[in-house]
């Protein structure tokens, strides 16, 4: 039986290469005159109100290419599939490729953390935003924030808070506890089915003791629920986010990197970040 599963999977991967016909190259994007931005409403990257750091970034990129901008809303479970044209799901640090699905976009930009399993199926741009996974609880939680020290010591101190608590995460995102070493700690993992932006409200509603949030989302949460968010400490090393591209579309990635370098040099990118994440400069003063 396992042999037949493998045959099916092998067939799917072989056909995958031939079925990218609906995916578009940089030249085809220019010919058709539209750049399709795949995005999941998340933090201040894609607000869902027609703006956001990633939305403005890709709008400027479309203008740089001389084409029309089109936003294609999607979900965390489908975002990579709808870029690559195949079902993709994580298996530890590996990615499993499944059946063919329609391609709906040319790139992903919504605060997509650079993770090893994603790098197997995507090419990332130069890092566009720094991040780190923090442990967050409601203000009323008895858990006490750590006292800051060195980065590694802080992670160790934060992990000491985990035994016995219920921790909420989300699959297929960088907030999946299974991606990190602390997954083996004696804690209860609760997977959240809703939108990533609703993770902390779920904790406020008592669905778990605490949750994981990456820095951009934590900054938004602190702004949105002043006095109700308790940051306990970090649970990961510093990470980075980037824009995701199909592996067979290196020209588009190169074009973006060139555009992104110019945007940083002109200071425009710093202004954009300041508009959506004014507090991030306090944490990562050197990144921008």
């Amino acid at each position: 039986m396992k042999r037949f599963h493998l045959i099916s999977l092998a067939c799917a991967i072989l056909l995958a290469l031939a079925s990218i016909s609906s995916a578009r190259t940089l030249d085809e994007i220019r010919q058709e005159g539209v750049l399709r931005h795949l995005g999941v409403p998340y933090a201040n990257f894609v607000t869902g109100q027609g703006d956001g750091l990633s939305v403005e970034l890709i709008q400027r990129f479309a203008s740089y290419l001389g084409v029309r901008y089109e936003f294609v809303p999607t979900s965390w479970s489908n975002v990579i599939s709808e870029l690559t044209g195949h079902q993709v799901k994580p298996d530890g640090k590996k990615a499993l490729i499944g059946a063919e699905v329609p391609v709906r976009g040319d790139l992903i930009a919504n605060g997509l953390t650079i993770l090893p399993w994603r790098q197997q199926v995507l090419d990332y741009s130069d890092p566009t935003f720094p991040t780190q996974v923090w442990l967050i609880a409601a203000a009323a939680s008895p858990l006490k924030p750590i006292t800051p020290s060195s980065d590694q010591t802080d992670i160790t101190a934060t992990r000491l808070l985990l035994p016995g608590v219920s921790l909420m995460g989300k699959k297929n995102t960088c907030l999946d506890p299974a991606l990190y070493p602390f997954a083996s700690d004696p804690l209860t993992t609760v997977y959240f089915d809703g939108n990533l932006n609703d993770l902390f409200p779920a904790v406020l509603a008592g669905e778990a003791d605490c949750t994981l949030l990456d820095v951009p989302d934590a900054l938004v949460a602190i702004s949105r629920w002043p006095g109700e968010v308790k940051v306990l400490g970090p649970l990961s090393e510093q990470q980075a986010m980037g824009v995701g591209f199909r592996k067979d579309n290196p020209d588009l990635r190169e074009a973006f990197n060139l555009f992104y370098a110019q945007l940083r040099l002109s200071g425009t990118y710093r202004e954009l970040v300041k508009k959506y994440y004014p507090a991030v400069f306090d944490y990562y003063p050197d990144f921008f």
Partner: protein
Amino acid sequence: MLVSRYEKRIPIFLALIVLMGLMGTLLILNYRAQLQQQKRIRQWTQTEFNASAERLNLALQRFMDETAQIANSPEVTAFFKNRALGMSMKYGLSTSLNIIRNLFANQAGEHTSSPQRHYEAIFLLDEGFQPLTTWPEQKAIFLPQALRVAQTKPCLLSYEAKLYLLSPIEQDESAVGYIVTIIPYTTLHEFLQPRGKSSQSPYLVCHKNTLVFPLLAPDQKRILCELFQHSTSENEPATISHPGDLTQALQRPFSGNVFLFRSSIPRFALDLYRIEDAASLYDPHLPLMLLVVMLLFSTSLILFSLRLVRSSSRNQGLSENLMELKIREAALSDKNRELELIISGAELGTWLWDVPSGAITINEQWAHMLGYELHEINHQFDTWIKMVHPQDWKRVKSRLDAHLAGSTAIYSADLRLQHKLGHWIWVRDIGQVFSRDEAGHPILVRGIHIDITELKTALNRAEEARREADSVICNFLDSLLVVDRQLRISRVNKETCQLLDCPEQQLIGLPISELFVESAEIVNSSFDFPSRQETEHLEELRNIELTFKGCDGHSVLPVSVNLARLTNEQGETIGVIAGARDVSKLNQALRRTEEQKRFIENILNIVPGGLLVLDDTFSLQQQNHTFDQLLENWHWQYGFRNPDLRQEILLTLARSLQHNSIGEFSLSGESGELTIEYYASLATAQDERINRVIFLHDVTRRRQAEAVRKLHSTVLKQTSEGVLITDTDGSILFSNLAAQKMSGYGSEELQGQRTSLFKSGVQNQTFYNNLWTTIQAGNIWTGSLTNRAKDGTLFEVETSISPVRDDKNTHISHYVSLWRDVSQERALQQQLLQAQKLEAVGQLAAGVAHEINTPIQYIQNNLTFLQNAFGDMDKLLVELQRCTDTPEVRQAVLSCSEIKEMMAACDLEFLREEIPLGIREALDGVDHVSQIVGAMKAFSHPGNVDRVDTDLNKLIQNAALVTRNEWKYNAEMETDLDPGLPLFSCDPGAWSQVLLNLIVNSADAIKEQKAVTLGKIRITTRSFDGQLELSVSDTGGGIPEEVRSRIFEPFFTTKSIGKGTGQGLAIVYDIVVKKHQGTIRCDSRVGEGTTMILRVPLTSLSEENQP
């Protein structure tokens, strides 16, 4: 006269007096109004200052409120809450400070486009007055010592020309921090400015009786405070007549009076002062100066008006007389000039004859007319008489005498006078007696001479010409007629009389229409052409074909008539002159020539191609009508842009004729290429205009057809699909390379063979009969055929056999068979089908195990019951068996009463009733398990290529059973199976796969809806019109329109990750459509559900095996 002049001036004097009085009154009123205006300006300035103070009051209140709002804002309180929770600046707390910093920036207007910013700085201090964050960033913090005491409510303080506002931040009823905002007084100064304009006036502010703005030295402050004591009223400004102290204190010059305006804001203990130089408000001397200037101006205006009135009345009379005189002089002068112009323009000689003395007075023109100068003429009447021609004198004298006698009103005569050079000139002499004596004798006679020599010469010449014309007409060899305006004959010549055999007298006066056979209307319309509107501009009409009618009334003569207009000297039309020529013989010759020409042209025009005649320079001399038509057709058919296609053809033709007299050439247009074939005669030198005759015709379609035929032939030979062409008996006429390769036969081997050569035995005779029936009916047959190759191996081909009809499209003449080799494809599909089926079995295994588990449970329960029951009964049976043993043994047997007790204890009656029930239940369970196992076995059996007659309803029941665990938690299944459904020939394993895939898809679609209530899967079967229909519908989410066309593609799925491999419907399509020649229809509505309708031809195996 004097009285009247004074009377005239009285109204003027009265008007002047009234005007002076009016102007004096207006001047006084204006002066008073100026003084009132100055007072109003002072009051208005005070009111405006009070309003400014009120604006400042409101602004200060707003700043106090804003400072308190910042202190109580959620952002600020959140920071202190987060700090109390233990959060560190490294992890989260600095975000709160950043938010507060943004709040400060927003409050200070940093993010707005407004240029007005009031706050100089905003501080967040902790409870020990240590700064936490500031706006602007990096702002150095200075707090007056007076503020550094614990505060429990908002307060304000003035220090160094700045206003400090402080508001405590409270948590749990104690101050945990403070918000301090700083506003410079220079900013507050803006609120004191009059609205909409900027004032240069100095403003001074006292807070709690201390001058806090502007910053001044103590001495200056003291001087100002003493001055402020003068100003106690907020309604009227204090006036400072000697502003020397003020100038010293404020280091600013003041001129004359100074006004000190005062206003106060008691709530904040603020007193406000505004110092205004009187000269900046208004000019105090302005009313008096204005009065004097206006008085002087009014006086000078009145005097000037008076002088103007007087002088204008005196000049009026003089100018009227002068004007009339000028008009008369001008009229006289005009008349004189007119007369001189007439005399000189008409070159008239004037004379005045004093009859009694005989003296004459003449002008220069009179003398010049006769070649003399004025002084050469003897001014006596006799001189004139001598000049008169002797032949004219008698006539002249009689007329002159008659006039002198008063018989005629005017004397007039044309006479000849001798020129100085000796020749005679004609003169028209006109005169009139101007005065007579009392006896009526003439005294003065005045007259003129007009030179009419040229006129007389012209008249003579005209007369000569007329006589000459008459001679020409009479003696002209062709017939000539002159017709007057009434269309009657006025003159005829001799030739006309001879042609008509009529004397001239009979013809003169005759209407012209009576000379011709044609109707009067036709004849008159020609001869009257100068009067008709359409021909009145013509001078002549030529070649009018008419027929003379002889005077005998029988003879006729065709003539060609030319008509010309006849005009008099004034250019007026007086008639028509007609020339007629006998054309009877010419007409006969022309008719014969015309008939021959038409005959030849008809022949050339019906030639089916272009016919050209070229001269020796290849210039086109003649072409037939067909060539013109061809040119026109070629233009639009091939899209030639060159308008002169004819010339392009001739040039190309000239080049081609250098090589061959027969050949073809091509020309490219926008819509295609034109190919022309030409046949040219050999060059001849007999006639320079006819060097070659060339025949052209369009062979484009023929050449295209040849190219297409060639392409078809190549394609047929080289295409990757096998092609066989047979006659109607199935004998092979043509086979291409692909067909030869698939079958292993060579071209010669196949030629003439029947198609039965490929029979493999896989298809039965019924199959072939159906095939032949289809194609003989003129329809296309498509399907899969397994053929036998030359080496005996089988190969499967997707075949399409099409009938080919003859040219008249009435009978089938050939069949074309197309083969596509699908042997490898079939093998792969078979493997894939089996793989997918086993994968599905694997996925179903857990559910099937669960289904088996339930009957196994109650089988186990019943067997346990039977085991226990048998234990009880076994004891009883042992005792009963002993009763039948030897007496020794029997002694040990229990008594009957004890056996009864034993029977009662094991409840024999109960066991007799329940044991059969238990056995039946266990057997039912075994049956159920057996059914499930059977269904699984039937389902997982490898695909059978051979078809068997199958009960589809049974397959559906099996599929529902093995998939039960897939749908029972989300849906309920409803079947509507036709009990009379006939068996149909199919591969049951493949159809089990079809049913499984459709049911699992429906179950997944319902499951993804995540509905609270159970969905529904409905399966129906029915048969009609030789077809079997299977319908599977669900109440799932439906298939989106954009992917509906792709659902049968291999490896395409819309299911979420891990749910589908994208092969299910592709396999269904392969089994139903390709293998069983069926159809699949997908009806789906997003949000409502999907129905898959499968139809296959209903043929049973028994039918197929019929001979």
